[in-house]
């Protein structure tokens, strides 16, 4: 573990870097992975669709906290390849968990587009990929922005769960001061989350506004 600062603000800020790193990496990897999972769950090849649906069900149906433990310990216990880096384990668990949620949001978005949009493209001689990229995609994005905003804000707060496998994220850092009889650092972690989520809320509001020029 990196040098532990005795200055609460410094310590919390260092801890929050972990939260932000975990947040950014999860988002970066789970967004595309969610798309792949969605292609699997909606696949016409039934065994693949079935297996991936069961997978999504398991991931969404069990606590992320438990999944963190599984990712950290299962490789070592089952395959004798111990997970060497706790942070990597956290990233893997978060990416898989969030990709499953994203895949369901994507699926909902795509299925909510009326069939008539595809048909209009077809009768105008468009190819399947033209229909998807020129007509469907933007409408889907517009529709999934609000639920994605929700998910992303939840992700920011969830990053603190990584303390359970020993990541020195912000709340873990604050706890040390609690043990020394100093309670305010723990409470003030909330401010970090509030501030960061405030920025995200404004960002999502901005994107929503950008797409306000059409109704779908």
């Amino acid at each position, binding site marked *: 573990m990196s040098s532990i600062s005795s200055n609460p603000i410094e310590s919390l800020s260092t801890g929050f870097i972990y939260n932000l790193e975990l947040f950014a990496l999860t988002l970066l990897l789970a967004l595309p992975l969610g798309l792949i999972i969605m292609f699997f769950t909606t696949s016409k090849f039934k065994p693949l669709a079935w297996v991936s649906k069961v997978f999504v069900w398991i991931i969404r149906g069990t606590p992320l906290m438990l999944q963190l433990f599984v990712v950290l310990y299962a490789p070592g216990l089952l395959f004798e390849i111990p997970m060497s880096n706790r942070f990597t384990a956290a990233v893997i668990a978060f990416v898989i968990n969030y990709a499953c949620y994203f895949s369901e949001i994507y699926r909902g978005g795509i299925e909510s587009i009326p069939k008539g949009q595809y048909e*209009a493209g077809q009768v105008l001689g468009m190819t399947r990929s033209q229909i998807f990229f*020129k007509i469907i995609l933007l409408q889907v994005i517009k529709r999934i922005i609000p639920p994605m905003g929700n998910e992303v804000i939840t992700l920011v707060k969830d990053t603190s769960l990584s303390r359970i496998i020993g990541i020195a994220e912000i709340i873990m850092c604050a706890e040390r001061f609690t043990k020394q009889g100093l309670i305010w650092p723990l409470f003030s972690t909330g401010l970090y989350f509030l501030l960061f989520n405030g920025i995200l809320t404004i960002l999502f509001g901005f994107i929503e506004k950008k797409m306000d020029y059409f109704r779908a």
Partner: protein
Amino acid sequence: MAILEVKNLRKNFGSLEVLKGIDFSLEKGEVLAMIGASGSGKTTLLRCLNFLERPTEGQIFVKDNVIFDSSDARSLGEAEIRKNRLHFGMVFQAFNLFPQYTVLKNCTLAKELLAQERPDYKSRKKEIFEEIREQGLEILDKVGLRDRIDYYPHQLSGGQQQRVAIARALMLQPDILCFDEPTSALDPELTGEVLKVIKGLADHHTTMVIVTHEMQFARDVSDKVLFLDQGVIAEYGTPSQVFENPTEERTKQFLERYFEN
């Protein structure tokens, strides 16, 4: 020479027979009105022509070219279907405009995408787009929406949206323009403007197939009327034959019901 010929067209959805052998032909410049009760198969027939449904059996010819033949063992690939369906234009009951594009872009988009397949696309892209734009403006002028080109669909009334949809279909200069109950989703006071545009097209000898519940309109605008009942053509003829001297009892009953209201 018939521009469109349909032979023994059948369509089943599972065990449900929706079309039970449809034969008809249409001459260039003619307007065919298809009437019939809900569930009689009118819309399915129109969707078969546009390859939105695949007929179970039968043949479709356009200008003497086979564009669908169920006895042909090889099934049509996506590219072939795309090419064949361009003989037809389609105007939907629910308009189905693209909400994220302006009125003008709704009309020009498909043509711009098709232009990518032209050999001179890269070298003349700017000119091609300019030509397409000009054509779009001209067609929107025809449907009376020249002053709405920069509007988005949600900013228009239903009647205006449907007129954009008609312009969009006209852009690709289809041989046959199909309408699937074009005024059924409109408030009564808005149907007039759409029917007027269709009437104008008929006056300019646009070949059209119109599925409609507007009997008075069907009578005024069409050259041929086709009355579908339970998946078969029950009556076929000129508007005066079908509306004034129907030979079939079920046609009489159907028309009586309509003209009572």
